[in-house]
């Protein structure tokens, strides 16, 4: 199993853990991830406007080089995944955007959305398989009660992300079961933590994060896992709920596989 891998800006700096734990786990699971040779920051937020082309280009370049390498493109950060997958969808379905983006880049073979974009969770579920993962777990996290925090970006818009049921998802819960812990289902797991306004409206970010963590705590979670550095920062820094720890799912994966 060989994939191209797009780490994104934050995974190279503040969220090195998220990245490192995944690489270690991937190796243990026999998943080969080759980092794209040259990648640029995706912009961290999908530009929704139809007439925004320049801001979509870095995603297109990444998609294009994965295509040229003949591999599927794996992402890990929820935000990168959202941006790249939505841009890919635009390139596939919006002829106007595709034309203009291709003109900008001036590639020999225009990119028309050929690359498949996978979140690392999807690699675990659909390529490795949670059963295989379960079999490879060395230190099952028995007794841990873990809440999945999907946030907004992993699942929505569901028609494009097409990862799971946007209102009642199961992918992270199934992951939690695979590593031997007990998933905790709580209502706010797919509601926004307010990460995007953390810079200028800290109060709102705090309120939203607290609502999420309180909801998880009320259902008895001791830990909340996320795939997004901004969510992690926000829930940790602004959430301020001492009873619930917030970690990347890859950290638990590495722990369970004994490669932490």
């Amino acid at each position, binding site marked *: 199993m060989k994939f191209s891998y797009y780490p994104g800006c934050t995974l190279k700096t503040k969220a090195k853990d998220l990245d490192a734990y995944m690489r270690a786990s991937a190796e243990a699971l026999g998943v080969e991830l080759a980092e794209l040779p040259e990648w640029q920051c995706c912009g961290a937020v999908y530009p929704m406007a139809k007439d925004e082309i320049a801001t979509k280009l870095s995603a297109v370049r990444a998609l294009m080089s994965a295509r040229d390498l003949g591999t599927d493109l794996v992402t890990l950060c929820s935000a990168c995944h959202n941006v790249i997958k939505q841009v890919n969808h635009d390139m596939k379905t919006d002829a106007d955007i595709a034309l203009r983006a291709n003109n900008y880049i001036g590639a020999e073979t225009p990119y028309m959305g050929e690359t498949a974009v996978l979140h690392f969770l999807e690699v675990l579920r659909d390529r490795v398989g949670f059963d295989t993962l379960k079999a490879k777990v060395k230190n099952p996290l028995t007794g841990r009660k873990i809440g999945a925090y999907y946030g907004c970006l992993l699942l929505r818009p569901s028609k494009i992300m097409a990862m799971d*049921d946007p*209102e*009642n998802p199961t992918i992270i819960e199934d992951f939690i079961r695979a590593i031997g812990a007990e998933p905790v*289902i*709580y*209502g*706010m797991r797919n*509601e926004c933590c307010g990460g995007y306004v953390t810079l200028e409206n800290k109060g709102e970010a705090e309120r939203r994060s607290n609502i999420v963590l*309180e*909801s998880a705590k*009320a*259902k008895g979670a001791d830990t909340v896992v996320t795939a997004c550095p901004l969510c992690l920062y926000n829930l940790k820094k602004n959430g301020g709920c001492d009873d619930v720890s917030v970690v990347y799912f890859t950290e638990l994966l590495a722990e369970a596989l004994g490669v932490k």
Partner: protein
Amino acid sequence: MQRIGVFVCHCGTNIAATVDVKAVVEALSHEPGVVFATDYQYMCSESGQTLMREAIREHKLGGVVVCSCSPRMHEATFRKAAAKEGLNPYMVEIANIREQVSWIHKDIKEGTEKAIILGRAAIAKVHLNQPLQAGESPVTKRALVIGGGIAGIQTALDIAEAGFEVDIVEKEPTIGGKMAQIDKTFPTLDCAACILTPKMVDVAQHEKIKIFSYSEIESVKGFVGNFRVAIRRKARYVDEDKCTGCGICTEKCPQKKVPNEFNMGFDTRRAVYIPFAQAVPKVATIDANYCTMLKTGKCGVCAKFCGVGAIDYKQQDQIVEREYGAIVAATGFNPLKPTQYDELGYATCADVVTSLELERLMNAAGPTAGTLLRPSDKKHPHTIVFVQCVGSRCDAENEKGKPYCSKICCMYTAKHAMLIRDKYPDTEVYVFYIDVRTPGKNFDEFYRRAVEQYGVHYIKGQVGKVVEENGTLKVQASDLLSGEQLHIDADLVVLATAVEPDKSARGIATMLTASMDTNDFFTEAHAKLRPVESPTAGIFLSGVCQGPKDIPETVSQASAAAAKVIGLLAKDKLTCNPCVAQSDELLCNGCSSCERVCPYGAITYSDKEFRGPNRTTLIRRVASVNPAVCQGCGACTVACPSGAMDLKGFSNRQIMAEVDAICKM
């Protein structure tokens, strides 16, 4: 060559004012084959018809062209007149020189020219007309009703009362349908069971009605008046004739943990069961998915206790073949399961229920014996939030929901709210609505009563998120009139989910060759004027299978469908439209193109023997058209690549002749 007579009508001055009638007669009298041409004041009048009949007799006419008003107006009149004189009615053609000429053209010269051309086209067509005979087919005097809900029950009773036999095929062990599950009915608040069960008993006791319960339609063959239907009687492992419905087996059955579908899964039943006390037929059924005896061969308790020896573990599905003259689809509906709307918490919170589930929670015969207790902790809810339009009125692109208004939810929610406030005045009830739609007799008054007399809080807005925390449902909603976002701590949330046609309907429609819309509702023959008939002859529609309806509407439509069925069964023979497709077997190459496009399933293929060269016999697969089923649309004639298929009365040659006559330079 036909001997043709031409009759040009003045229609008073309607035609004569802008068409030079005499010139038309003069011009057409020189057309080939025309042996008689005249004009008259009013051709459709008694004396006009007499004029035509005399001319047919005197001039031995073999074809008639009437230049007059639209054939949609008087074609039948002139054809009948010709028939009285012994001329085949299909040898009469009309040239429409009123609606298409005199009424729309002001210039006499132009009008006259066009009238002549239209007359020529009609003459050219008549030359190629063939005498046609309308066939007849007998009518089997029995009706089939598919579905035993209130729609099917009402239709069956009405047909049976008129003296015809009726079979009801119901896939569940009992008739009664959704209405049997409902607690009270709007707008009068009668108890549903009190008004439904007497009708169920009437059905059971009616000598003309036969119920096939726990049965499904296997196949449908034939056509209007002559359907042959195979019915699968699923094995219920109980001999219906022996079982007395005493219920001892259901008491003794050790398998107690079967979810009770009649109570929407809120409680359990046994593996051998009678769905509810007033079930018809009152016969036990063994659920093969749960019966220990059927699964492992070890148990047999019910057989031991049954006093009449009705239990039969070896029973097999049986196929019964029956013949019918008419079939009524009454396949009903199901409420949409709102699992995809989990922002409203249905899949994850026990206390988020659908409206039909609430009916069971409020029903005296339900799991809580009529006391409203919420499912999670069996406590009495003090704050209840109703959400309207869940899954209804969605954009056509929205895969989760339905594009239509489900029609009944506004009223039943008002009913629920009112009943709760009446019985439990300490309960606060909120209803989130987009619009309150209450057209219907005494309906808006009913809804206003919920607001004004019972103090139900109606809020224009929607619920955006429901989260369960520590036993409380946190409801986040919009209040559009005050511009607020509301946060309500509720004990119970009720979703008024869209109605959707029963899943079995699609397969049944295919078997009946009855058409459906994109939502899987049966389409009617005409949206306004033939609302209870399917476009397929002999198939009728009753109840929600045709579109969302409440009980009063369903019952009216059920009776209307019955009236149509009675009208059909009252005939001994059916006259068929003679303008039907016909296949030339010598030309047919057996490709099946025609069969695929026929909307009525009128075309069948069979192997036939043909004489080949040198006294050999060839077997070829050729198409034949059942004239009783064919409606004469002509789709097959164009699909046919070999030119074997043609339409009587509108044949290729006839239409080409008209084209030539019009284009002749």
